């Protein structure tokens, strides 16, 4: 086994330490935001945005995908993103089932009128 020039792991330790610091800072922002009075849908959007940035940093630098061939990136990433987006098809149904579950709480059950057998 001789040294392989094309197998050399690209990226310096300095780069990886700066990525690590960025990830810690973004985590710190998330914990800070947890105690701010932000409506839940804004909070969810901000947190998911930060998480996607963190995931992208990990995939690109730690998992080394930035330094791989474009054909590998295009094979792995778009299909994963598409499949995850397709999962959201089910999400609006949760509002419908919330409506079904809690509607009777506003109008008491009608069967109180029926006589006992």
């Amino acid at each position, binding site marked *: *086994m*001789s*040294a*392989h020039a*094309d*197998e050399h*792991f690209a*990226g310096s*330790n300095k780069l*990886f*330490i700066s990525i*690590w610091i960025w*990830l*810690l800072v973004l*985590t710190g922002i*998330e*914990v800070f*935001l*947890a*105690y701010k*009075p932000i409506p*839940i849908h804004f*909070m*969810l959007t901000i*947190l*998911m945005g*930060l*998480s996607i940035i*963190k*995931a992208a940093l*990990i*995939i690109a*630098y*730690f*998992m*080394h995908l930035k330094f*791989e*061939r*474009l*054909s*590998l990136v295009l*094979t*792995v990433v778009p*299909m*994963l993103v598409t*499949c*995850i987006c397709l*999962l*959201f098809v*089910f*999400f609006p*149904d*949760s*509002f419908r*089932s*919330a409506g079904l*579950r*809690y509607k009777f*709480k*506003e109008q008491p059950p009608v069967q109180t009128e029926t006589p006992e057998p």
Partner: protein
Amino acid sequence: MSTEARAETFTAADWGGGVLPYRVGHRKLGMWLFIVSDSLTFSALLMGYAYLRASNNWPTPFPFYPSIVFSTVMTFCLLSSSLTMVFGVSASSRGDKAGARKWILATIFFGVSFIVLHLIEWNHLISEGLRPFFLPEHWVKVFTTPDGIPPTPLFGATFFTITGLHMFHVASGAVYLGVIAARVKKLKHEDVEISGLYWHFVDLVWMFVFPLIYILSVDVGGHLAK
């Protein structure tokens, strides 16, 4: 490797096909495909969690201490373990097998710390009375809405399923890395790099589990403490 180097000459362009269209070994490609499928497993679980959360009265019970402090330190452990893993792979690419082993052992140390902290955090919740299908009685009292809707007991089910499956991934990753560290002198650099891919993936999943499960369920008003 020389066969792979010769194969390069058959590969005209990225989409020209040939023997090595991705210029990675078949094991590394296999790990990438496994990571894609495992991402979908976690995505589906988190999607199910989001669905249940949006359609139920969801309790937000996590206090700053112990839950948020512990989970933040756990995040720190996982991020640091990823950094030490990168150093290990980098040492291995330079042919420094002893250095690679040292860094991989540091990675296992952080991974095991994560599991220990997580089990302590689980133990706090279990001793409070949280079960997969039951909430502690005082949670039910505090989080019942003014019009009498109780909080859903599915909180425990989603919490233990998602964090438990993640913990299982960390534990099996620690065993995997243990095998790699023990046999690092015999293994090729690519094998070390593949174990690194798996470990970073476990870290990456936590980057979504931590905000969705912990940060969004913080007891901001301190209702449970009152």
